[in-house]
């Protein structure tokens, strides 16, 4: 499963929306199996950077590589093949609200595998068990709490056992205990299944737990990159201030 290429590489990616530059020549590299955290204040382009990795947003200039494949210009089936290797946990869970929780998790399996209904049911049950929603197969997304929706979203993101998992603000809108539970689930995936994690957050305790490598974005630019300790010793005052806020959080 090891690859000579990094799991993800953004190469001088620039992106603007309506004349506002959100990412400015951002370069970063996520090693295989790594927990990689993108930090920064709100509106600094963290989520936009994450969306580039799965082709939901295309760079104006620069390139995006996933396992060595340049996905910048990929379309159709070729892009779909790359996306099957990447799971995405959205900030709100983004569950399809017209189908049950179990069918949400089953959706990628039904689309991309030849498993029988019984096999899918079994796998979905196992995914739901792993996120603590084993008894919620038939519930509708509207009946779930915020934390449960995020867990269900995580189960769906992991439906095809992707090699890379992208996570957008795992603790947003959650209480500290639920947030910690989600972090534990993510950590378990990294440690047990060797899944590469790319996590966007501004929650420093979460970043400390999940991040082997961290990058901090400010005004669309990468201002610091390294381990937690390296960022704590950064010359950049903003980075140090951001990291020290962890002790409060």
């Amino acid at each position, binding site marked *: 499963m090891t690859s000579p290429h990094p799991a993800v590489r953004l190469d001088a990616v620039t992106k603007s929306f309506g004349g506002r530059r959100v990412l400015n020549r951002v370069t970063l590299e996520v090693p295989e199996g790594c927990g990689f955290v993108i930090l920064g204040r709100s509106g600094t382009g963290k989520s936009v950077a994450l969306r580039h990795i799965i082709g939901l947003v295309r760079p104006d200039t620069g390139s995006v590589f996933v396992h060595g494949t340049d996905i910048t210009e990929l379309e159709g089936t070729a892009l779909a093949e790359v*996306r099957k290797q990447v799971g995405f946990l959205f900030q*709100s869970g983004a569950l*399809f609200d017209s189908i049950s929780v179990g069918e949400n998790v089953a959706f990628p399996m039904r689309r*991309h595998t030849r498993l029988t209904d019984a096999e899918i049911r079994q796998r979905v049950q196992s995914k739901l068990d792993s996120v603590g929603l084993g008894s919620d197969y038939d519930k509708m997304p509207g009946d779930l709490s915020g934390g449960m929706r995020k867990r269900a979203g995580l189960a*769906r993101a992991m439906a095809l056992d992707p090699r890379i998992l992208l996570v957008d603000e795992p603790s947003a809108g959650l209480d500290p205990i639920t947030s910690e539970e989600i972090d534990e689930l993510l950590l378990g995936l990294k440690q047990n299944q060797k899944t590469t994690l790319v996590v966007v957050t501004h929650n420093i305790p979460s970043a400390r737990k999940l991040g082997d490598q961290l990058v901090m974005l400010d005004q669309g630019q990468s201002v610091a990159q390294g381990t937690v300790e390296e960022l704590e010793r950064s010359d950049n005052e903003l980075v140090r201030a951001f990291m020290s806020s962890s002790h409060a959080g």
Partner: protein
Amino acid sequence: MLEQASTRATTHLSTVGEFAVFAGKAARQAFLPPYEPRETLRQLYELGVRSAPLIAVSGLAVGVVLSMHTRASLERFGAESMIPAGLAMALVRETGPLTAGLLLSGRIGAGIGAELGAMRVTEQIDALEASAVDAFRYLVVTRVVACVIALPLLTTIMNFSGMLGGFIAERAATGMSLGLYFQRAFDVVNMSDYVPSTLKTMVFGFLIATVSSFLGFTTSSGTEGVGRASTRAVVLSSILIIVANVVLVRLIFFLYPEAAG
């Protein structure tokens, strides 16, 4: 002031251009594999079958009212026996297709605009894409195909229930039998009246589905945007149906001169 007007005009033109590309893509992809038969059938049920009661009840009411109006007019000339034929001709050629189109632009247009808009703002469309599914094909093309198939069928239901409504009114007024009513009605209506005017509703279906899907797909600004998309979907698809109808009627008269007789 002039600059503002120019900017607005450019924005509107650009939106029209984007819609044209969107509609063209939907029309092209409808004929290209991979197809989504399961989702298309589901949409056919949601948009078509579930609209049938609305169409049937409306058709019945329209038939009763049309019959009462026709009776009031034809009585003056002693031509009451022409009521079934007049009603059938009016329903099949114009009233049925146009009324069905406008009613469905309300029910289906609002539904698609709101559903896709909500899916956009809650990131469900992004989640589909992230699941390696072509969201355009899965959400838009299936709805377009379902609408294009459903509209002529629902128009036929509208025509039939309208005739039935007309019969109920006639029965109440004169005690006419069902057999005589339909014999008089179908004496004058032939296939060249029914086929072109019913098939033109495929264009109405295409317009309703593409306009509503476009507005839903491009929704922004949260729940307020969803409401706006839903309202605009109804307004724009209704206007487009009325305008398209003028062109289509002219086209039908050109292709089927006997339909103008």
